[in-house]
């Protein structure tokens, strides 16, 4: 039907360009998504996805429960789907598309003939002209077709019809090109006997890392995140995840990161499968090894160290501190990622800054001899300190652009040395109505 004809029939019809490539892509993604429930999936253009559930349905509590789970998740994802399970792909295809809604989507073992008997011959995935030819012969249902003698039928309508019929009934094989999603780099290892010893876990993690690194090397990728999951014999899954600061294919390094976390794994009654996936990868070209040791110390690659520290302490607890252009002391430093490029910036060399900075500053009771003089005496944490030497003030104005209410704020910083040689950093904020308040913000060495 032409677009013009459709528009004439239905006024105001919405016209969208067909995008077959995008549809095929989306279908391939959907097929890859279905990998969570079964090891083999394949897109079936234009509108279907094959899922080979042999051996995996019991993980979900049977085929019916598996279909319910799959249906729920697909609907949650916004897909309108019909599902069917059968011994042969052809039967499942036919039932999913042509069976009445009230019939069960589960075709029992060996029940293909009964399930497809009442379906139209289109359900056999025949070409439209073949369907038309069969209709001229008065054959509309699969049952009618199946009842005819094969020899004359083959002569009359061609071998393709019989081939399809045999595929539905399981008399002929049907190969499917199962999709292997390229982005998932996964290696697995199943064990004949459950394992639980820490040393065994370490060896498994090391072996899997070696396999995965080889896989990544073939694809020219480096790992940024590894997900290691163990399946326990009682069905529980324990997963752990390590990240790296930069893409790497260093098997020893990755294995070490994983082994450091293996103590978290509770093997219970034993683990019967391990699966290591590169959850996040980045392109990493092969590098040429150094042929000769020139004796020069190259730039140290800290990524391995950062990874180990992050695996122990947490990724956010490894950092560098970089200068921020701010006069307010507590704002003059900022945490940066540990491998941020060094830019050579530092703090102004002429400003004295304490080794320890208190945040928030601690209030002190101070006595100054003159309104603008450094304190002569102050009480901090209940102890009286007499000032013998002072330097200042260094005046720091509030940054009105950084925080509201700082427009009028002002701090006069003094370095003071007490009788016992301790050096403190004390400031007085702007004279308020109740008089200046004194704060102790830091300790010099």
């Amino acid at each position, binding site marked *: 039907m032409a677009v013009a004809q459709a528009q004439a029939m239905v006024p105001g019809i919405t016209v969208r360009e067909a995008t077959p490539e995008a549809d095929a892509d989306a279908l391939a993604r959907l097929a890859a998504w279905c990998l969570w429930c079964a090891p083999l999936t394949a897109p079936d253009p234009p509108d279907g996805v094959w899922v080979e559930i042999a051996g995996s349905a019991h993980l979900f509590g049977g085929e019916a429960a598996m279909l319910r789970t799959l249906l729920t998740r697909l609907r949650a994802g916004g897909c309108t789907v019909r599902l069917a399970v059968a011994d042969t792909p052809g039967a499942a295809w036919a039932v999913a598309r042509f069976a009445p809604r009230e019939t069960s989507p589960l075709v029992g073992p060996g029940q293909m003939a009964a399930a497809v008997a009442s379906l139209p011959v289109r359900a056999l995935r025949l070409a439209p002209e073949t369907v038309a030819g069969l209709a001229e012969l008065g054959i509309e249902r699969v049952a009618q077709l199946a009842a005819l003698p094969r020899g004359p039928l083959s002569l009359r309508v061609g071998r393709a019809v019989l081939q399809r019929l045999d595929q539905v009934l399981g008399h002929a094989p049907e190969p499917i090109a199962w999709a292997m999603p390229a982005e998932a780099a996964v290696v697995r290892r199943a064990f004949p006997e459950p394992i639980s010893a820490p040393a065994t876990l370490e060896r498994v993690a090391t072996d899997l890392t070696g396999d995965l690194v080889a896989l990544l090397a073939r694809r020219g990728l480096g790992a940024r995140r590894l997900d290691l999951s163990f399946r326990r014999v009682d069905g529980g899954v324990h997963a752990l995840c390590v990240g790296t600061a930069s893409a790497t294919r260093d098997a020893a390094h990755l294995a070490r990161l994983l082994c450091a976390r293996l103590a978290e794994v509770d093997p219970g009654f034993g683990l019967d499968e391990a699966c290591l996936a590169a959850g996040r990868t980045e392109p990493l070209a092969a590098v040429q090894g150094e042929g000769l040791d020139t004796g020069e110390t190259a730039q140290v690659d800290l990524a391995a*160290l950062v990874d180990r520290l992050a695996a122990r302490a947490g990724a956010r*607890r490894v950092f560098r501190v970089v200068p921020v252009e701010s006069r307010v002391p507590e704002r003059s430093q900022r945490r940066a990622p540990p491998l941020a490029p060094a830019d050579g910036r530092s703090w102004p060399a002429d400003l004295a800054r*304490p080794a320890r900075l208190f945040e928030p500053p601690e209030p002190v009771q101070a006595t100054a001899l003159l309104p603008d003089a450094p304190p002569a005496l102050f009480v901090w944490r209940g102890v009286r300190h007499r000032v013998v*030497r002072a*330097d200042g003030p260094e005046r720091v104005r509030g940054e009105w652009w950084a925080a509201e209410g700082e427009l009028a704020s002002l701090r006069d910083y003094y370095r003071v*040395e007490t009788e016992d*040689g301790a050096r403190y950093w004390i400031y007085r904020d702007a004279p308020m109505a109740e008089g200046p308040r004194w704060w102790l913000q830091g300790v010099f*060495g």
Partner: protein
Amino acid sequence: MTSSDPRSVLGTLRARIATLERGSGTAPAPVAYLPFGLSAIDRLLPGRGLQLGALHEVAPAQAAISHAAACTLFAAGILARTQGPILWCLAARDLFAPALARVGLHPDRVIYVETYREAELLPLVEEGARFRGLAGVVGEVARTGLTASRRLQLCAEESGVTVLLVRRAPAAAEGGGTTASAATSRWSVEAVPASRRAAGFGRGRWRVGLQRCRGAALGSEPASWLVEACDEAGRLALPADLAERSHPQARQGRAAAG
């Protein structure tokens, strides 16, 4: 002793002991030393300087926070005079990085890792101590045991990373006096009043004590020196008013007397 030259015999024995201490029969790796630049201190230390690739402990002499801050800067000043990246293991949030830059430790060189549990800190220090290529690791610890320090010392010897454990409280505050440690040397730092006669608000003044040092010619009393705090390149200096007046012989006497 019938040997012709006692010195050479002693040297041979020392080398053999050093080999034994390294735990294997292989030839010991070359050991580097970082001089303080003060002959009074350097002359006491084997190798005329602080041994690199070893574990050193720095503790405040007293409990006040200013002494602990002095320890921090003392450690930063040592590492500022080395080359290469530094790992700083934090146990509290109050370290102010600009102060490290002021004693010569450029922010580009330092990677920090923080944790709040003492038990987690030493493993982090050890990760750093094992990592060949770091110039040094600083661990801000509350206490160390013999086992932990032995581990760190062995890691440091193997990797060549200098490990400085900066204690937040003096050893005596734990009630057990000085605890056992396998560190190559143990220092105490105390912030003391600057000279009354000094004009203005100059560099701070520390009393740096060397409490023990493996292979050092220490007397029964720990040696200590009055020094000016680290300058912008991490160097200590003798106070001007002492340096002017005292003869080297007199300084040595002071050192021996503590």
